[in-house]
């Protein structure tokens, strides 16, 4: 029975000590499952697999437009989830966002010989943000919930542009062609959507 198993996994894998109890959102089933995967619990991994397989394979098929390649990529994404679970920090990103960035990187890398460049904090050129106050930290943790709400209340024309960008991995030029609008309109809808999102969030860096 899945609910019983989930409760057991949540009990088995409480948040690590560095996740402060003041976290703005309660831990969800997916958070506990990923923490379980980090502890090399195969039953937690099996459950995460069941919960995300359908969404990931549909998402990756939208990007590759090829069934076999999407299946192979889905397996690749789960391998990366297994290998990187110990880097997951539920106070920094929601499970959905963490899994999304892994899937996005895997799908970009799939078409390239070299992996996508990632800004690297160990780079001598790196510029750090100024330290945050504890209020700001709490505000950041609530972002994921608010982002979802903001996405649901976007005007349909703006939401459609974002769906083409994220779900179908289309560039501004491609979205313009698909929707029969100008690239300028795609860019302005993107800008408006992000501005709206920013207003919905409690905090912005100086």
């Amino acid at each position, binding site marked *: 029975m899945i609910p019983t198993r989930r409760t057991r996994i949540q009990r088995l894998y409480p948040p690590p000590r560095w996740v402060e109890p003041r976290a703005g959102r309660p831990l969800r089933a997916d958070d506990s499952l990923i923490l379980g995967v980090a502890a090399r619990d195969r039953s937690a991994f099996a459950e995460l697999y069941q919960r995300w397989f359908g969404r990931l394979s*549909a998402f990756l*098929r939208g990007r590759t437009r090829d069934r076999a390649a999407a299946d192979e990529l889905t397996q690749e994404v789960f391998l990366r989830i297994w290998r990187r679970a110990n880097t997951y920090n539920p106070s920094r990103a929601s499970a959905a966002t963490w899994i999304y960035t892994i899937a*996005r990187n895997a799908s970009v890398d799939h078409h390239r010989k070299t992996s996508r460049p*990632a*800004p690297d904090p160990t780079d*001598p050129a790196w510029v750090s943000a100024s330290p945050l106050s504890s209020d700001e930290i709490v505000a950041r943790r609530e972002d994921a919930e608010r982002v979802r709400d903001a*996405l649901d209340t976007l005007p349909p024309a703006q939401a459609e542009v974002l769906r083409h960008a994220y779900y179908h991995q289309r560039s501004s030029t491609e979205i313009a062609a698909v929707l029969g609008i100008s690239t300028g309109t795609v*860019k302005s809808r993107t800008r408006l959507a*992000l501005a709206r999102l920013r207003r919905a969030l409690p905090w912005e860096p100086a």
Partner: protein
Amino acid sequence: MSPTHHLPASWIVAWAAGTMDPAREVLAAAHLTLCPHCRYEVRQAEQLGGAVLDRAIRADTAPAGSFDALMARIDEPEREPTRSTHDPSGVLPASVARYTGPYNDVRWRWLAPRVHGVTLDVPTSGLPLRLIRIAAGHRLPLHDHAGAERGLVLRGGWRDQTGHYRRGDACFVDPDLKGHEQVMDTDTDCIALVLNDGPIEAHNPILRLAARLLGV
């Protein structure tokens, strides 16, 4: 110091969605290394991606046996990630140094008086991505752009009609801007990444002819 001229929203979303061409990715990654503000914007934009994935239709359930097939591969060694090249001088972010090597080893080629450059071997839909070095205090000849130009200052800086650009600043110039007039800051040579969609046309006909003859 943090940059004050940032990436446009369409670039933030394209980065988060993974839809950029590789040359733009090099420029964006370099800016993100230098700009905490845009890194925060990207994190928000990635949360949108997470929300979209969370809402995705569950088209299939996992085929029988596919989890076991996955577990059989679980100990496979991971494909080596592309090794990152750090520039010990801190001038060039790793995304740039990957193609040019560290700043002190860059093989500059003469492009014009007081202007040197090197082309980065990275696929792009427009003209090649270039790292350029312009002498301190140099005034570039008045010019137009046949396509958009995106510049990223990595050292020194310049002023033009649109503002003052220093390390980390992204300077995006629209082809509508006629008579682009850039004057380099005098403190040090200016190092910048430049990506053009179309050729640059000097106003002075003699310079235009010289540029054609020299192929620069």
